[in-house]
């Protein structure tokens, strides 16, 4: 077990390197010259002289691997350089500025997801094929089928325009977080509700449940002590991954609700071709996913001894 975990962590290191390489290399696939972009966003006419100066200023006159190496050194110090759009703002500053809002939104959504999907998943499993299960089944299908952006706009229309009880967006008024958090969590609620329901149902058919029943244990204690525990164990890994997904999933929601987080930072960077910001965003998300993956794999391995034997 320890060996597996150690091996898994060691494997994550080259993966992190590959992720840095991809985020660095991605920028070199763009059709336009970043120097010219940097000049234009600063409204300088791209004369040959200005291009040469800017190229040197941005360090783009060095060979690829030299730049990659020095970039790695930089990011190790959490220095992603300066934004092209606002030369007086550092990229890491921009990310740190918008990260709290995204974390708040993702955290809130996570709480909603956990708080809603677990109880509802249990209820559905227990009352399988009864009215509430069928109703929830319909809810699940609809919720996973509704595009985020459509749901967001419908919610705005209903709660902000018609009922006028919640603000349309931004992060200033009380209750502003409710609509984006609900929009963001809806899909995940459905996913995890189904996950927990199915996992419980699967566990209910396991031998130990029959055994417990034949031993005459009460249904309540079978479900509460054994089935629920096992099902939650199985779902924890998936829930862990959902944190990363929630954070990256904020992109569309943040844009609809003018939520000042990194999702919006990234989209406006894409539109403004602010490459250092896009680069930092992709890198951060990659690292986040790798870490979550790692944790999920380790938890899963701890819970399922069969997986260890697989070399």
């Amino acid at each position, binding site marked *: 077990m320890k060996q597996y975990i150690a091996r898994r962590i060691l494997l994550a290191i080259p993966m992190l390197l590959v992720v840095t390489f991809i985020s660095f290399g991605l920028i070199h696939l763009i059709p336009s010259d970043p120097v010219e972009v940097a000049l234009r966003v600063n409204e300088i006419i791209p004369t040959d002289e200005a291009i040469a100066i800017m190229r040197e200023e941005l360090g783009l006159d060095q060979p690829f691997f030299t730049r990659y190496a020095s970039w790695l050194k930089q990011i190790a110090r959490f220095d992603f350089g300066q934004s092209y759009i606002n030369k007086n703002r550092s990229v890491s500053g921009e990310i740190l500025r918008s990260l709290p809002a995204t974390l708040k939104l993702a955290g809130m959504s996570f*709480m*909603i997801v956990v*708080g809603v999907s677990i109880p509802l998943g249990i209820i559905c499993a227990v009352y399988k094929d009864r009215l509430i299960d069928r109703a929830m089944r319909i809810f699940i299908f609809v919720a996973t089928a509704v595009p985020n952006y459509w749901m967001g706009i419908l919610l705005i229309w209903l709660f902000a325009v018609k009922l006028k009880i919640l603000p349309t*967006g931004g992060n*200033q*008024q009380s209750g502003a977080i409710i609509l984006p958090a609900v929009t963001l969590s809806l899909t995940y609620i459905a996913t995890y509700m189904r996950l927990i329901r199915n996992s419980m149902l699967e566990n209910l058919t396991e031998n130990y449940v029959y055994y417990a029943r034949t031993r005459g244990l009460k249904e309540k204690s079978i479900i509460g002590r054994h089935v629920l525990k096992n099902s939650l164990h199985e779902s924890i890994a998936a829930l862990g991954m959902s944190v990363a997904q929630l954070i990256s999933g904020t992109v569309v929601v943040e844009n*609809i609700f003018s939520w*000042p987080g990194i999702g919006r930072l990234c989209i406006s960077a894409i539109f403004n071709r602010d490459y250092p910001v896009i680069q930092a965003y992709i890198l951060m998300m990659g690292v986040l996913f790798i870490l979550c993956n790692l944790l999920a794999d380790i938890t899963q391995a701890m819970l399922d001894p069969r997986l260890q034997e697989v070399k």
Partner: protein
Amino acid sequence: MKFLKRKTMVILVGLLVMALLAGCTGASGNTAESQQGTGNNEVTGGEELQELVYVNFRDIRDLNPHLYSGELFAQNLIFEGLVMITEEGIQPWLAKDWHISEDGRTYTFDIREEVTFSDGHPFDAHVAYANFQAIYDNIERHGWLESIRLMENFEAVDDMTFRITLSEPYYPLLTELAVTRPFRFISPNCFIDGTTKDGVDGMIGTGKYVLAENHIDEYAVFEINDTYWGEKPEIQRIVARVIPDNQIRALALETGEIDIIYGTNMVDAETYLRFEEMPGFSGVLSDPLATRMMIMNSTDAILSDRLVRQAINAAVNREEISEAIFHGLEAPAARLLAPTVPYCDVSLEDYTYSLDKANELLENAGWSMNTATGIREKDGKPMEVQLHYNIDSVTEKTISEYMQGELKKIGIQLSITGEEEQSYRDRMKAGDFSITFNISWGTPYDPHSFLGGMRMPAVYGDYAAQQGLEKVQELHDNIFKAFIATDEGDRQQLYNEILTYLHEEAIYVPLTYERNRAIFRNGVENVTFNPSQFEVPLEQMRLR
């Protein structure tokens, strides 16, 4: 399977309730930290604070008045120039008076006394000199600005006298000094290494408001400048919120989150009319101020033919655009600049809508109809043209789609692509387009700033689009000659030639005469328009 026991049920329901509560507490926990910037007329210490919530589609960004990457409305609140443009023409501002030498080359300004920056630094001719020097340090960034290239010298003659000497008698100088940027003054305390070209350290001006805080991409707060030298505005606090989406902006106005939406590209005609009729809200329209148009690139393979450009101009039903897209708010524009614009009352034959004429012109140009595809062809190549538009503008997409349907009628396949403001502008400057949208600068800049901009690469798309014209050099020379002509008759003659040439070459497709507009909740008063479409006179507004 048996039913769940009631107790378990209670626990589950409890969990659900907790989740909901978590949602609510999390939300209310959020209010404490940033309660400012909401509601109006907040009560502080028994006094009523007059607060206006304004909205913009993006962050105010870098407000350095000597550069171009900040939002104009914010720069206008903070920074002031030597002179200002009003309906009545050029008026004194930080210069209380000025004299122009006989030869039109020397301008001497008397600086207003007892003006200080909001950090306490006094404003005088030396500060003006330092600011001009800082602007001059960055001369390559001011491509559109003719006056800076013509400046032979500028100096502080004494503490309160500032003099500019030009190499040519350039008549639009005062207008260019009055424009929001770059000739506005920032406190020397904000300079970095004695200049502003690499950024500034603080946004301290002499204006009516000071920038109190900015939460990037959320909102900025402007507070009244207590040490302002002149009459102070009534509104003490302006909160400028950022809402990128057009519909959400309108919703926010309807729900009372914001007080006013201002600007042509911020409100579409439908929304304007809806709020104008809605109880509790009002709308105002400015006089027509600029020409909304499209520009065709004369270096494009298909559009390099003048006949094709004329055909496209004939295929535009301006009346229908005015009626159906703008609901009559904007009048159709049959020529590049309205006859009411100075020097522009030139006798020209207006562009008129006639599909027959358009078809005939295209036939003459050698484009014959392929009846199978419905698209014209020449030498086996289909007639396909690209149109780029700005997705941040509320009407350009509609016009683009409309044009797509209309040009199909004369056998032109128009493919349209929307881009975000920044990329769109970059594309224009680089000349990397076939057809794109364009706008004249509006009063009081028209015609000279609009025409002057054509001479300079990388200002708007004009320069690049005109490169395929046969007499482009002569055109640009004529524009410059008109600027420095000292005789009114000569100047008019030059303008006649310029406008006639542009009209005949038909590289512009005028659509409508744009009108600025604002919608706001009742209670906001004195919503007016400055002559410039880029300014928002927030400082003039009042709250009831």
